[in-house]
């Protein structure tokens, strides 16, 4: 004898991305705050010390924003032309920036006027950075050269001119105070050691390099250029580890999260992709309104700041972790009841008799088990079920139809209930997974309530709504079919070659027939 089998609710997998730990993590941000800057945002840099202010370089200004401020808490606007690449020093007290006129300015975060100004580049400087010993600055400019400056004396220490195109990006090693890396539009990434006169390593990226990044360990180098993000093993002499091609436009910026487990890349295709650094697979991606130029992540992943080409700064803050310990405590039974009987460990010779698990049936299942069709339908037409889990409602309707009692369950309802039913049907009938069932339901409702049409304004309105929804869907389907037809003709032109092959086979078949005839 079998037990009652509950109604199978078709769980439809959510289309699109799957819910993983990553999606949950990266979705845990509030709705973004949009801040309008004066021009394209070319660099965002977080201060490495609390309260984690960040410097935004856009047009001829550098704005410094606080964590939750929407207005800049400080502005450096002493640039004659565009400023580039405002970068914090490791202690968060100094800020260096390049500019369109080739000079590099060094600011005190608390001050206004530049502390030092380094002149030497003849063309705009797009890259400025501090070496990890804090006393030297490296820079790269559109004059193809990269230079090393001494901060106290404001003098140029070394100049390398090995690149053959603009130097646009770079970073310093955190492990070695003498090593820094530059990437250039000549498709190469070069590793320089301040102690030598020339570069120590050259890596061929294959596309103009837009951004480079060193892992905290200093062993792995990430370069972005063209549509590619490439990961190189520096310790193996610049061997290519992975080449990622997940964007369909140029990748402009790279960033690591605070744990170093995830790599973020922003691109002109308006997407930020997040990669796992173990598998180098995309685990999540963000969509933005316009092309992305710069990207930064605050320590502890508290804030994601993205700068775009149209000068909009997009700031997302992480939602605070909800802790409702109070409510949880109420649900949990007392420790004594919980432990009761569980502390006994069965001995080897004991017979364990397992208690049959009591199955809890949903209300509609209980009603269906006792063949109360109308009441079962009532149970699933309650607003919480109808709104949040329409698949349950539809599954019960389908079950009733299977039992042949749907018509009697739908009949004999008052104005309010019919209204409720029609609202549901009109809203859900266009969903493909429900269409087949709800079309039957709609058919039956119109059949049953045809004689009373015109007696209630509310019901009539719902009928009209249903008609509209179905009409719209039909138009839409027609359009889709048209598109399909167009595509078919396109594909038909491609498969011409195959058809001839089929023709040959057909003739083969004919010859066989002749042979079989001969066989008799």
């Amino acid at each position, binding site marked *: 004898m079998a037990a009652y089998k509950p109604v199978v609710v078709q769980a439809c997998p959510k289309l699109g991305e799957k819910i993983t*730990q990553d999606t949950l993590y990266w979705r845990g941000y509030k709705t973004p705050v949009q801040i309008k800057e004066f021009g394209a945002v070319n660099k965002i840099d977080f201060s490495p010390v609390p309260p984690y202010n960040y410097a935004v370089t856009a047009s001829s200004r550098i704005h410094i924003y606080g964590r939750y401020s929407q207005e800049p808490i400080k502005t450096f606007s002493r640039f004659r032309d565009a400023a580039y690449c405002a970068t914090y020093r490791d202690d968060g007290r100094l800020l260096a920036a390049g500019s369109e006129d080739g000079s590099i300015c060094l600011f005190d975060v608390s001050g206004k006027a530049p502390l030092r100004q380094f002149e030497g580049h003849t063309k705009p400087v797009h890259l400025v950075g501090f070496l990890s010993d804090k006393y030297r600055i490296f820079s790269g400019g559109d004059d193809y050269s990269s230079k090393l400056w001494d901060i106290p004396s404001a003098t140029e220490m070394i100049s390398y001119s090995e690149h053959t195109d603009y130097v646009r990006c770079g970073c310093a090693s955190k492990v070695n105070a003498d090593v820094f890396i530059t990437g250039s539009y000549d498709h190469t990434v070069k590793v320089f050691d301040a102690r030598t006169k020339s570069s120590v390593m050259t890596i061929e990226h294959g596309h103009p390099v837009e951004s480079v990044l060193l892992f905290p360990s200093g062993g792995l180098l990430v370069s972005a250029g063209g549509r590619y993000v490439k990961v190189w093993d520096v310790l193996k002499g610049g061997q290519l580890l992975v080449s990622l091609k997940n964007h369909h436009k140029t990748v402009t910026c790279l960033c690591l999260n605070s744990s170093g487990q995830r790599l973020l890349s922003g691109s002109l295709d308006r997407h930020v992709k997040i990669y796992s650094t173990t598998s180098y697979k995309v685990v999540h991606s963000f969509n933005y309104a316009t092309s992305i130029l710069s990207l930064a992540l605050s320590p502890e992943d508290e804030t994601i700041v993205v700068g775009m080409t149209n000068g909009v700064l997009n700031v997302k803050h992480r939602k605070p972790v909800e802790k409702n310990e109070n409510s949880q405590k109420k649900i949990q039974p007392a420790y004594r009841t919980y432990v009761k009987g569980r502390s006994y460990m069965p001995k080897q010779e004991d017979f364990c008799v397992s208690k049959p698990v009591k199955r809890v049936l949903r209300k509609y299942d209980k009603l269906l088990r006792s063949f109360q069709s109308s009441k079962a339908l009532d149970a699933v037409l309650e607003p919480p079920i109808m709104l949040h889990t329409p698949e349950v409602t539809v599954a019960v309707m389908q079950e009733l139809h299977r039992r042949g009692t749907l018509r009697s369950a739908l009949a004999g309802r008052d104005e309010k209930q019919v209204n409720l039913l029609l609202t549901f049907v009109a809203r859900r009938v266009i969903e493909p997974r429900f269409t*087949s069932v709800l079309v039957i339901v709609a058919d039956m409702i119109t059949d049953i309530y045809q004689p009373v049409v015109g007696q209630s304004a509310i019901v009539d309105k719902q009928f009209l709504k249903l008609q509209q929804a179905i009409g719209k869907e039909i138009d839409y389907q027609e359009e889709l079919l048209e598109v399909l037809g167009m595509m078919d003709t396109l594909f038909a032109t491609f498969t011409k070659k195959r058809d001839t092959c089929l023709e040959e086979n057909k003739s083969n078949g004919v010859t066989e027939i002749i042979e079989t005839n001969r066989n008799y």
Partner: protein
Amino acid sequence: MVSPGPLRVVRCGGGGQRGARAVYLLYASGDFVKVHSVNTEETLLLLCGHADLVTGIQLNPHNHMQLYSSSLDGTLKLWDFMDGIPIKTFTVGPKLLALYVLASAEDSVFVVVPKKGEQDTFQLVSVKLTKGAGQDLEGKELSVVLDGVGASPKQIAFGREDSYVVSVKDVNLQVYFFKLKLLNRFSLSTAKTKGGDNSFSCVVCHPTEDCIATGHADGKIRLWRNFHHKKAYTYSALHWHHDTVMDLAYSLEGTRLLSGGVESVLVQWHNESSCQKDFLPRLGSPIECISMSSDGVLCCTLHTDNRISIINSNLRFSRSIQGLIKSRDVKTGLVVDPRTKALVLNGEPGHLQFYSLQSDQQLFSLDIVQRQYIHQAGLKQSELVKVAFSAQGTWLATVEESEEVADPELQLKLWFYSEETQSFALSTRINTPHDNHITDMCFRDMAELGDDSLILVTTGRDCVFKVWVMVEDSDPEAHQSVSWSCDFVGGYHNYQATNCCFSEDGSLLAVSFEETVTVWDSLTWELKCTFCHPPGNIRNICFGRLTCSKYLIGATDYGFLCCWNLLTCALEWSAHLNVVVLQPDPLSEHIAAVSWLSKESSLFVFKPSEPWPIYIQRNLCKEKILLAAFVPRDEPEMISSEKYCWLRKSQLFFLTDTQELMTLSTKSLEERLTPSSKQLAVEESLPMTPFSVLLGKHRRQQAQEDTDLGKPVVHNKQEQASPAVKELLHTPAHVLPSASFLCTIFINSLLISKENKSAEEVADEVEMESEKAEDDSDEEDVTAMEQEDASHMELLGEMTCKLSKSQEKELRKIRKMDYSWISAF
């Protein structure tokens, strides 16, 4: 050669009685009566002897160890069902349709026979059982009791103290009082008002009161009283069933009435009031018969799907006895589970049954549809239509569809066999895999490449075939899971795809599209070549195996069997044969084709490389064979005959349209039955413990020795001794009886007697002989007979020798006696 499988249960009788509890369940199954143990669900005995369907069985009211049975072959038999021996056979003549035995009438039984000269009219007659010495007796003394009765045994019932008999037919009820010789007729109105149908379906009488309960086609139960009077009779109605009441039964005291019907719910009515009733719902399938055991403790229900449920008196389901579950329509075909070698086919609605052929038992039933089945006519329920196993049996694909023709609700489900739970678990469910009915499905069988190469192909009436592959969600941080998704959709000129088949190495896929067979490369999914043999659509296709793997066999509607060579892409040979079933043997290159021509099925077995069959069995059976399957044998059978060598590695099973399972066997019926009858154990109400086995064995031996007085025991005692000693030693000391009691048994078991040796040798010789005989001829019947004869002869020889010795002794005694007496004189 052809033996029908035990598929149809006709009528089940009550439990035999032993002590205070019902121990045996007897029921008629086809031409046999089966004796089941209620406790263990095992078949204990098979009473065979009737030549046609057994229609009724009744316990002898004067001897509870005896059983009457009636059959369509016109004979009544009296059996001793404890030993399985027919005691008497009464030849009556006409077909016997039902049997009733009364306690009051000692020398006569009542049977239903067709009226002479008239069709479809039956009469209840009493047969006088003549007392005679022989086994075969005549029972020709018939006297008509009632005329115009129904043919079903459920339509006649005998009342309290056998004082009257009730018969129902259509809307008429007849009561005949034996003592008064009075016949009362009552009839209900024939008008069918509000869907009501007054015609009777069954009748039963109250065991202690004058009350008749009748079941009706519209689900009503009527209780008739006061029917001694023609006018003043009364009846009351109980109504719960929504469809025909199939059977009724009163409890022993008559306080409870049980009823069952199509709803597959057993209803228990208390005190004949409609307000008090209990239900036992969801018994699986419609109830056909209800039977109470003679002590009233148990009741059993017989279901339409060839199953018996045993139910406690407090309406708790106890256990069920089931063989091959009969389903309305075997749509899945006969599939062999590679893991258990069980036959897999439709079972209960929405279930897949795994049926073990060796033990004639259902191994388990897998719920595929997972929906509540509503037993009601006219509903469109989801049904299981296709099943396929992967080569290792790790994956199972099933297709279910609703019965709607226009817009079927299709589901393709893929099940994975999990080693931990030892059962199949659902892995992937695909809704509407095709837009129309799925016609065929097969896995790519590549055992050597493992699961990664697993491919499933489905063909549909929506003119495409689809290729499904396994996709692994390889997220290193999430747990790995496998799902199936569509990889390729292929079609051919918008023809409906009807069949698909992979070649043995998995490199080629053949898909038939109406008249054409297309062959595809399974790596690139390119169309390689096409074959056709117009006119007529392709009905079946299969690839040759092993040495014949270059051939593709196809059967068409127009009655042609074609063999194409894949290397030359040409027709090798063709034959005119209306092939219904085409089944390749997975272990050899043989292919079995079953044809259907002018009301008989014939079997042809051939190799694709040769156009002439190696084996032909014409007139296999009268029914149309719908399905066939080769089941691999556990160990290859030694078959010397050239003709049957194709049966060496696997056995062929057929399913006919009347749902009988048949097989081809080179052995005779007796030989196949021996293993089951060997298992006959002594039925004790005591639980079986090693000690009881030991004691039982010795008691039996002692008893034998007592009764047979020195008749040689054929068992070898020495062989028995060692397990006996073992059991003695392994039984815990606290359950053993005193040592003094065990001592004699123990020593006895160690003794070696001279007589036994000779007996053993004799037995050996007989075995040798029989082996030789088997080698020589095909007809094992004769050899078996010979074997038995020989053993009897030998035994007789021993006996005579023994007897002469004892006679000598007696003679000597007599001599002595005589001598002393003479001297005294």
